[in-house]
């Protein structure tokens, strides 16, 4: 789960990483009073779960409450790469002498947490990695040993931070970031930029914080931070129904059981010349109600013109899936053509159930490839 900047900063604050003082605002009026409380020049920052806010005009300076209100009016409701701005973070503006970069993530190959640190912060880290790889210091941490002061020393000396005051502050932040990373079950904690003010104070000016969905059960406070409004409405409906759904932008609705098979089905539809409307994984169980719920989500997308059901029954029973399809067609009055390919556990029974229903818009196909081709034809 990705957190908004202000939520990530809240976690930083809890773990003792210095951040600027700020307030949340959802209306221009709230932005004004936030600016009044904070005093002086403030930054008005769009809270959206996507990068490139600055370039898109979602971050503006305001030197007075009047100006904060005006900027907020401009930014609220703005569309930033498909995300509508509904919340703003109003923060006291910072004077910046230098911009660094510090992050902690998983190195999936090494199967260890990985620190990355560079004094060339403020820009895209991929760019630093590509143009001046020597400036990017990387350091793995043994997850059983944890983070020690020497890790921080290694990072600051290797990156060439000379000022003793800065060294000390960054070392402290390195240790606290590791505590936050482990403590909040994060997959990514990124501070870009980590700024140094003209007075030599080091602070996190931004935050990118991703928490492991699998660990939310032990962090109810973080689980509550999920911004349902920021998600695609269909994806939010899917989450509510317990279906794994990713919106794509084509016309062929794709449903499968299991992430790998569904991903493969999306590919096969594309290779057959079609454009998938979504990725929808029924998951392991796939009882009749689960199928009805999944079909409800998939057909809520008005772009869907045909549906490809690709089921390889293991734990999932094909007869249950067939019953679910019939139930959904009847309950929702689905008119779109549905192409069904069933194999594995109870496939014959499933095919018989569909066959006996003899519905006009149901098409059975024997293989995954034929099913995909048929669904593509029917969407045309």
């Amino acid at each position, binding site marked *: 789960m990705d957190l908004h900047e202000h939520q990530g900063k809240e976690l930083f604050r809890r773990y003792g990483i210095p951040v600027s003082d700020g307030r949340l605002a959802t209306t221009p009026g709230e932005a004004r009073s936030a600016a009044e409380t904070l005093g002086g020049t403030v930054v008005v920052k769009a809270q959206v779960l996507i990068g490139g806010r600055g370039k898109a005009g979602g971050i503006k300076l305001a030197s007075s409450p009047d100006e904060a209100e005006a900027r907020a009016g401009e930014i609220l409701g703005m569309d930033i790469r498909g995300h509508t701005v509904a919340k703003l973070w109003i923060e006291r503006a910072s004077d910046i002498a230098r911009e660094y970069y510090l992050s902690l993530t*998983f190195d*999936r*190959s090494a*199967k*260890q*947490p990985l620190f990355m640190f560079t004094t060339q912060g403020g820009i895209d880290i*991929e760019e630093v990695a590509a143009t001046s790889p020597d400036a990017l210091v990387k350091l793995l941490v*043994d*997850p*059983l040993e944890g983070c020690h002061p020497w890790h921080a020393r290694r990072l600051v000396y290797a990156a060439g931070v000379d000022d003793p005051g800065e060294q000390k502050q960054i070392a402290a932040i390195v240790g606290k970031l590791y505590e936050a990373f*482990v403590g909040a*079950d994060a*997959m990514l904690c990124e501070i870009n930029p980590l700024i140094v003010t003209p007075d030599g104070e080091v602070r996190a000016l931004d935050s990118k914080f991703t928490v*492991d*969905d*699998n*660990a939310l*059960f*032990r962090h109810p406070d973080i689980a509550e931070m999920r911004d349902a409004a920021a998600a695609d409405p269909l994806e939010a409906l899917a989450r509510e129904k317990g279906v*794994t759904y*990713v919106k*794509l932008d084509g016309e062929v609705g794709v449903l*499968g*059981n*299991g*992430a*790998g*098979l*569904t*991903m*493969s089905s*999306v*590919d*096969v539809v*594309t*290779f057959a010349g079609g454009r*998938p409307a979504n*990725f929808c*994984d029924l998951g*392991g169980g796939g009882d009749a109600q689960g199928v009805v719920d999944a079909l409800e989500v998939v057909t809520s997308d008005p772009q869907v013109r045909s549906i490809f059901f690709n089921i*390889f*029954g*293991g*734990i*999932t029973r094909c007869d249950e899936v067939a019953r679910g399809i019939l139930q959904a067609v009847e309950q929702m009055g689905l008119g779109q053509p549905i192409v069904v390919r069933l*194999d*594995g*556990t109870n496939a014959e029974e499933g095919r018989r159930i569909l066959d006996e229903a003899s519905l006009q818009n149901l098409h059975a196909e024997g*293989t*995954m*490839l034929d099913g995909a081709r048929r669904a593509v034809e029917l969407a045309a």
Partner: protein
Amino acid sequence: MAIIVDPDTRLVVQGLTGSEGRFHGLRNRSYGTNVVAGVTPGKGGQDVDGIPVFDTVVGAVSETGANTAMVFVPAPFAADAMYEAVDAGIATVICITEGVPAHEMLRLHAFVQVRGVRLIGPNCPGVLSPGKANVGIIPAEIFREGAIGLVSRSGTLTYQIGHELTQLGLGNSTIVGIGGDPIVGSSFLNILALFEADRQTERVVMVGEIGGDEEEKAAAFIEAEMSKPVVAYIAGFTAPPGKTMGHAGAIISGSEGTAQAKKDALEARGIRVGTTPTETARLVAELARV
């Protein structure tokens, strides 16, 4: 010979008294797997259809000589169950449970690494050596015994490819589902090395998907270390960046982890990559004729 599970497997099922554990534990036994024990704290002394249940793994090991553990306990307790199995001297731990926190897996991986324990999963369908033993939830009837090793990050996609192979008259030595999470106990590399050393295995199919760089590392390993031919399949050619495709590990971040990059890396090392499961099975069949 096969790998990981075979007639010498003596299986203890952690969570045998739960509904999933019971269903699959008994199914594995009817397949012919030697299921010697179950473990559920507080239910020691009971039995599940004749399989004795113990309170602790160490109890099960000392009474029954179990050497392999299958973990079916709920996610919040799965890491603890795996540590317990390792501590009790179990050599192979196969975790079916879905939803184990990634930080737990980081620590567990480091823990088992130095103890020489083989950990498969979590969030995986298990391991099947057709005709010998089945540990996990793979529907064995799809597969037949043969000479092709199959290793995969996905469950149902593995069934699809196994089904296509069977239709072409090809069988498998062992099918290994390593799981789709970002941090899993065994990587493609670990399993490829086992297949290379296995006498029954003549060819290998590797089923990957978007995310991470395990397929790229496997490509280098295959070129440098393997004499047996390998065919690969990658799912997720059309997946958009930044979206998790069902598996927590299946996400394209930045320029890393795309299916095309993986295909290119594999093909650059002379490894053929199928674009659909059907084509992949056909490539394997072509190899078989050579």
